[in-house]
């Protein structure tokens, strides 16, 4: 956390020294600050900041890509005259434990076209989702568990390196 604040501070310093307060320059300052901190990482106590940032950026790219693919799939289904979908309501056993993890996963599932989270069981162990393309129920479940959920949880669950 303190590394993150240092990085923000470095970005602001860069912006004030270069005298150009635009979003692109702020982002550039953040990247330079991140690089500087990364190169001097052995000077600080072990922190998972660098790992978290790296996995978060990877996850954002992965999710945006999935979002585009799934959107095209739903758009195709909407635009073609016949219904080729096989909707199901699926029970998805959760690896996510805390309220934050479960709501993050549910929101991401809802944002992906073709899947919609309906409800979480009272004991917070199972998430019920409505999936649009679920001819093979097990494949949908495995896809969400191994791709979305595993990557999401790995962002903050992996230990500092």
């Amino acid at each position, binding site marked *: 956390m303190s590394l993150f604040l240092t990085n923000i501070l470095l970005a602001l310093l860069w912006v004030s020294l270069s005298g150009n307060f635009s979003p692109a320059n702020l982002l550039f300052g953040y990247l330079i600050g991140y690089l500087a901190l990364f190169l001097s990482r052995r000077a600080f106590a072990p922190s998972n900041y660098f790992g978290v940032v790296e996995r978060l950026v990877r996850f954002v790219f992965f999710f945006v890509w999935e979002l585009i693919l799934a959107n095209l799939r*739903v758009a195709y289904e909407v635009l073609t005259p016949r219904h080729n979908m096989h909707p199901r309501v699926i029970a998805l056993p959760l690896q996510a434990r805390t309220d934050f993890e479960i709501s993050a996963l549910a929101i991401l599932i809802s944002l992906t076209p073709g899947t919609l989270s309906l409800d979480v069981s009272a004991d917070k162990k199972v998430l019920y989702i409505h999936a649009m393309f679920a001819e093979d129920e097990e494949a949908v479940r495995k896809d969400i568990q191994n791709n979305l959920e595993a990557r999401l949880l790995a962002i903050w669950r992996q230990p500092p390196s």
Partner: protein
Amino acid sequence: MAQDLSAWLIFFGALFMFIAALGVARMPDLFTRMHSSTKSATLGVGLIMLGAAFHFGEIGMTMRVIAIIVFVFLTAPVAAHMLGRAAYFAGVPLWEGTLSDALRGHYDRRTHRLISDEKVEENFPEGDIAV
């Protein structure tokens, strides 16, 4: 350059919004309609807002755009979840092409508790809608 990018972003945003609207009209039941309306509309709003940010290119506008996108992405799934849950309780029928329904029999009709392991079929008679 930024103007071209902004034009393309707004074009694709509008296209996704159009497909979302078409999907609401074309899909057979409430749940598949919600797929269309929440997802594509969210992406559409996001793209149009990004286009606006590139068009103005000011920090104030960019910050507002980021805030709008974050709030839309946070609230749309919550609204979809509440609508879907309420519709399920109200007994809105699923499309006849739906292959299976894992929720059936897992709700306690009276308390609205969702029980994950055991079925509560006896509290959940077919076609009986207790409010």
